[in-house]
């Protein structure tokens, strides 16, 4: 089996192969970047080569990455001296990839952040056609209180919210993270044929979606003077910092997996909570593990790895938290 080291905030290291996953430390020759969210982009690189899917590379450049990045399209493989590495679509945001590593020590699938069923504003979700030895999975929503409504319901909520606000002369505001969620909302509401304005930080990333052929409808960058009556999209932090504060008649919805929590309503002072997430829910996670039956599952990106482990134990699927010093038998 492959050895795995969780290197603090530096990502994950496979020391036998000198491969880093979302890794910014000094001990890897090859680094693979799962997707373009800031907490996964290595903030510096000591590697011989850093690989990302073409959209992820574009996001990295727009978010200030200075080191050189090689493009590795989905399903194409790179062979290093000790391993063969392939990206598979992760369904989280555009360009998001699961990293599949094959080596003499066995294979490994690192999910990065992922969502299945996939967001429609992505390349989809696809698993490698292989038995998985080592599975490293994120588990952001790792409690059975998290179960998403069907996508049809979520879509109806989003469309209905915008439609009824506009009909009643209110400006609808979607609080959505500016890479991924924002574009997914835009991709959905384009069918209303109503102009959209998106917060500047998200706007510059929309270009990548255009290039990849994801239709975001009729949009422009946020302009305080002309935003009234448009469908507005901004991150939740912006709304308390003056975004559209000149528009008196507006309705606000918070779009996030965390919207499943009632307390978010009063914390953010919003009209509606729509629990649309970039991540899979707890039940989807457990059933994916059941489907894959990996020899070992490592659980990461969660305060509650033990809940997932408990469910996997009951199903006879070996697992452990990646926060513990992981030293698997080899």
């Amino acid at each position, binding site marked *: 089996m492959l050895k795995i080291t969780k290197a603090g905030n530096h990502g994950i290291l496979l020391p036998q192969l000198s491969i880093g996953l979302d890794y910014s430390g000094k001990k890897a020759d090859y680094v693979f970047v799962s997707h373009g969210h800031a907490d996964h982009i290595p903030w510096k690189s000591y590697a011989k080569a850093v690989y990302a899917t073409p959209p992820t590379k574009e996001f990295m450049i727009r978010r200030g990455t200075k080191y050189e990045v090689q493009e590795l399209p989905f399903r194409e493989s790179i062979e290093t001296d000790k391993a063969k590495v392939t990206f598979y679509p992760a369904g989280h945001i555009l360009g998001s990839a699961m990293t599949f590593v094959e080596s003499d020590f066995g294979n490994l699938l690192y999910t990065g952040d992922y969502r299945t069923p996939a967001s429609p504003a992505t390349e989809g979700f696809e698993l490698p056609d292989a038995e998985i030895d080592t599975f490293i999975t994120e588990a952001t929503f790792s*409690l*059975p*209180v*998290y*179960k998403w409504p069907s996508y049809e319901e979520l879509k109806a909520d989003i469309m209905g919210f915008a439609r009824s606000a506009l009909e009643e002369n209110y400006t609808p505001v979607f609080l959505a993270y500016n890479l991924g969620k924002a574009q997914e909302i835009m991709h959905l509401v384009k069918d209303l044929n109503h102009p959209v304005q998106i917060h500047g930080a998200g706007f510059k990333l929309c270009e990548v979606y255009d290039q990849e052929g994801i239709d975001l409808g009729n949009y422009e960058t946020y302009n305080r003077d002309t935003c009234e009556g448009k469908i507005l999209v901004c991150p*939740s*932090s912006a*709304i*308390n910092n003056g975004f559209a504060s000149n528009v008196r008649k507006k309705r606000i919805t918070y779009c996030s997996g*965390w919207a*499943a*929590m*009632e*307390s*978010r*309503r*009063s*914390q*953010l*002072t919003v*009209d*509606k909570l729509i629990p649309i997430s970039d991540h899979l829910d707890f*039940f989807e996670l457990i059933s994916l593990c059941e489907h894959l039956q990996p020899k070992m599952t490592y659980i990461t990106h969660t*305060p*509650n790895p*033990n*809940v997932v482990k*408990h*469910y996997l134990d009951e199903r006879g699927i070996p697992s452990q938290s990646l926060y513990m010093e992981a030293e698997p038998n080899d």
Partner: protein
Amino acid sequence: MSNQAQNTFLQLAKTAQTINETRGSNAKIKICAEYFKLLETDEDLQMAAQFLGEGAFSDVSGKRASVGSRTYSTLAADLCEIDYEKVFKPSKTATGSSSEVIEKLFTNIPESRAKWDPQHISLQEVKSIYDHLEEVSSRADKQEILTNAWIQMTPLEVKYFLRIMGRGSLRIGFESKSIVSAIAKAFKHKVDEVRYVHMLTGSIGKTTVLAQQDNLAEARFNLFQPIAFMLASPIESRAVDNYSNYVAEEKFDGMRCQIHIKGDNVKIFSRDLNDVTQSFPEIVEYFTERSLPEIVLDGEICVFKDDTILPFQLLQKRMGLKKPSKKVLQEYPTLLISYDILFYDGQPIFEKTLAERRTLLSELSSKFNFPITTQQHIRDKDHIDELFELALAHGNEGLMLKHRDSTYEYGQRRKSWLKVKKPGGSIDTIMMYAHAGSGKRGGTYSDFTLGVSVRDDERYEEEFIPIGKAYGGYTDEELKKMNAKIKEITAEKYGPTLGLLPEIVIELEFDDIQVNKRTKANFTLRFPRFKAIRWDLSPDDVDTLKDVEHLYKEKIDQERLSQKDQPSFIIG
């Protein structure tokens, strides 16, 4: 058919949920008023208003369903076929609400869904479930009743069933003030009239029915049926223009109560309108001996021994005792000190001014020899300081300032009654958790769990344990700075809560320290709040749990000025 559905508990739960999902108190009041109007019978209306406004039982009934959170949480885990420790508890920690967790688990988990058969049970049926829970005492019996009730409900109903049972807030941003407004709106009355009737009846359910029947004028004060208490506002929050309109009394560190007297019949009610007569037999005896006319007094029970008022912590040994032993009675003798009179000569006198009520109270006190507070006319601001020092020397909490022309009205009535208190003390604590703020503080972490050090305490394995939760008391600038620092020291994230590395030291001010066996520290602070952010201090400077225990002991052992000279109260 559609009319029939109005009296279901499901309809109430849906209404509560809609109120929760609606912004703006006027819009919320409107939804509630429309709901009230659709209920056809008095029984349904009374129950609906009581459930939304008071809980499973009317406040004056003194009844409780008495179901602990562990009782219903373990049951919920069993019904879901999940492990209570390994799955339920972490879920509770993440959402912060047992009732919300249970609603979600019942919705999400197939093993629990299979057991469900929603019956659209009526409000009256739910009422009898609460009655049934109150009657049994064992955990097994309560769980059996709960199981039978829950399987007939939707998860949404279960959530509100639990919140109503717990007598706490329904957490829908709709408190009793709004319910009073909704009643007024639904049945076209003045809000003040509804308020008054609510005070008299002590029951939001009855008030609603009277309002619906256009019978508010019929509401009467009844002896031995307690009315809601008048409360004081902190003086810091109110600007006082003319002190000469106020009188001052010392604020006793005792237990607020209302005593109803008719000959040999005496009943004492606590602030939450529970009958606590049995706990204080010597007070009952004291008043029956005096052959008073029919009256109702408002006052404070204190432990009084050797001419000295003793600390609240000793009074706690008397509270909740159904039948105090002779030894306890001797060791902690109590006295009721009155400061207001609400009923005399066959009628309520809330509408009279404080000055008029006080004149009457003084006359009765000298005629029948029972203690009343010493009242001082306030000359000026300096005079307040002088009286305040004397109050503290007596071991009392501070002063109450009361407007001479004020009538007796329940709740906080702006500037009618003001309290002047000295902070109980302050300790240096470590910031352990940050919680996302609400309302205008949304988007920042503005509520904090603070801890004391137990590093060298052999009783604990942790480094720090929580001692209190505080928010406010900092400037916007300071909050910004704290939030920037919090980003750097976040160790874990639980939804809206962050677990922090021990770095930020907060000087925490509080009113009092109390024993609370249900907390890890065994102590809770009353009204903890920020005094200062101590960027100059490190985690090594944080006060220890032993320091807190020491402070507690000091407060109990404080020297107290005897009541011989310049007393806080007078008899006759």
